[in-house]
């Protein structure tokens, strides 16, 4: 299952709700303002690092670049381009968007 988060973790509860429902083996893709969760020093970073143990984490690179956050990306989070985004959706039979 693929979880998609597009809201900032400091503005909305979407990221927290996602982490509360993600199961081992699932994948999480951060897009739009969701990418802030994967940046060093963010309030969400610690929870994200803990989740990395049994969940694959991806971030949409164009959204990181747009926000000047590429250099702050946490280790272990995999940047993908739009094609990679499509691949993730195709590879996972279920997608949950935490709007």
């Amino acid at each position, binding site marked *: *299952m693929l979880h998609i988060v597009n809201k900032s973790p400091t503005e909305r*509860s*979407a990221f927290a*709700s996602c982490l*509360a*429902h*993600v*199961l081992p083996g*699932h994948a999480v893709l951060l897009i739009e303002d969701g990418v802030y969760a994967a940046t060093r020093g963010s309030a969400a970073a610690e929870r994200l690092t803990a989740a990395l143990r049994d969940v694959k984490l*991806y971030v949409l690179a164009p959204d990181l670049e747009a926000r000047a956050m590429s250099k702050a990306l946490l280790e272990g989070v*995999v940047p*993908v*381009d739009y*094609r*990679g985004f*499509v*691949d*993730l959706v*195709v*590879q*996972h*039979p*279920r*997608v*949950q*968007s*935490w*709007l």
Partner: protein
Amino acid sequence: MDQSEPAAIPATDSDRPGAIRKFMFVNRKAPYGTVYALEGLEVVLITAAFDQEVALAFLDDGVYQLVKGQNTKAIESKNFSPAYRALDDYDIDRLYVERESLESRGLAEEDLVVAVKVIPASELSKLMDEADVLLSF
């Protein structure tokens, strides 16, 4: 990740034409601040008309959709909360409410307009994982 050829989703029984699929509607928004809740309800009814297996989950602010006593006269919006009681007529009787979301909003099962199953987040995660299709509102 591999950027060449996307791997195909493995075919399952639910992919057969005419197969009944397990739909789960994930409701996470309060009823009147945005149009999500009302639109979600519309899609639930459409899906049921196609004889699909439908379940609804209410979590986060989505639990506010089910609170008894809504009166929208003065805000000139349609009060659609009675519609949740009609879902049973469409053979939709799987309504799940997340316990943590209820409790953190000072709500209890008896505050809700319709009979639901209150379950912990851990159980809801599993139900989501077992659905064929997830639709978020």
